[in-house]
């Protein structure tokens, strides 16, 4: 097996061990800790009051706007990484290409800014 694949075996092993540690810890806690549930204990916490309804309802859409903006910029960032690695070989041509790409996104950001999408309330 080449070293290249071997390094991803490490990644996989670390993930498995990470999940394993969580499971072992929970098992240990399960073995050591007492378990005497009552109705009050299992009630959702709401500052000591009777909970009103559930939390799975409607919530503000501000988060959604930011998520949309983020998707745009995150995709941009994915393109930035390979560009940055090969930057010196691509030269001025690559730089201008990337500048145009970023400029288009910045125009989008500016538009969102002027439309007050970046204001929280």
């Amino acid at each position, binding site marked *: *097996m080449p*070293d290249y694949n*071997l*390094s*991803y*075996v*490490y*990644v996989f*092993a*670390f*993930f498995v*061990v*990470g*999940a394993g*540690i*969580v*499971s072992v*810890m*929970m098992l*240990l*806690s*399960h073995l050591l*800790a007492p*378990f*005497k*549930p009552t109705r009050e204990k*299992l*009630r*959702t*916490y*709401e500052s000591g009051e009777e909970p009103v309804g*559930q*939390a*799975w309802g409607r*919530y503000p859409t*501000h*988060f959604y706007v*930011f*998520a949309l*903006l*983020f998707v745009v*910029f*995150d995709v941009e*960032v994915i393109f*930035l*990484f390979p560009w*940055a*690695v090969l*930057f*010196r070989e691509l*030269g*001025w041509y690559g*730089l201008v290409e*990337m500048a145009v790409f*970023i400029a288009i996104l910045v125009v989008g*950001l500016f538009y969102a*800014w002027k439309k007050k999408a970046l*204001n*929280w*309330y």
Partner: protein
Amino acid sequence: MVPGPFGLDPVLWAVLRLVIAVALAAGLVFNGALAQIYLERKIQAIIQDRTGPMHTGPYGLLQTFADAIKLLGKEDIRARLTDHWFFLAAPAIVFAPMLASYVVIPFAPGVMGADLNVGLLYLTTLGSMTVLGIVIAGWASNNKYSLIGGLRSAGQLISYEVPQIVSLVTVVLVVGSLSMTAIVGSQPGLQVNALIIPLAFVTYFIAGLAETNRVPFDLPEAESELVAGFLTEYSGMRWGLFFVAEYGEVTVVSSIIATLWFGGWHGPFTDVHPLLGPALGVLWFTLKTYFFVLVFMWIRATLPRFRIDQLMSFCWKFLIPVTLVNLLVTAILVLAFPTSLVPVAIANWILLFVFAASIPFLQRRRLVSLRARLAAREHAVA
């Protein structure tokens, strides 16, 4: 495959090395968390003119061990209305990527899990997986505080991810590689990246604070507004694992800073002896990393918390434009002067001072417009 030391069989050595690496990383995470919780409490105490934990063990050194044992013995309560499987999975979704980040952290030449050629990209990917766990935790709890905390956290983490990654790309641009070893190798002696691209360091540091949910960016768990944010319904060891993961995340961010901007394992006397050298490298790297962990704690004791609208507008209206400008300026100068990094360094220091000096002016403009709006409203009411 590399043959092992003492004439070990390569296959056996590969397996053995993997086991050692995993065990060391897990040990580091847990001991690091215990040490950092103690340090954090002590440092906050010193800054606030208190003594901090004193009774368990000498100077309270065993306090965090006692806390860990207490957490293991606490009743594991899961509220009736929670989403069973997601509630169980959330700590693992936060913890496993954090542990997996340790694969590529370069402690010393040869002392690292695996030198992935996409090391930095891998680290950013794992860093952004935390947000998944936090959102799932907030949603699965079926608690209003948790849900708001989880969503706030999602908004904050995804926003600050953009300046964070653009800062990292600036480093990649100068170094020309994503591999952690190559990045460390490019900064011998005093030629560290912190001197060449200081603005990228500052923006990454700010974004890193936000990514780890540390003060002043700890809105997801703002105890004065949201009880405990996404952790409200969690208790016992489940809560403890979130906590360990948070400290592990802080260590990862600090070690990224130490590697990318402060030359990683480089330091005096690392090439004196084939065995002693790497050991010293680990020491320098650890000292650099813990220096930043301590700065994080210092900041926690010093700064007040942001408001959510300030947090968002600071990121989108200030940090992202700044990092993009920095990236473009650095790119142009790297191409214009292919042999020397001095122009890049000069431009970056100038940019850093310009942006630092612009903050008071921006704040003043903000205040003036706020006052104008308030006056207009009062006028309308009258």
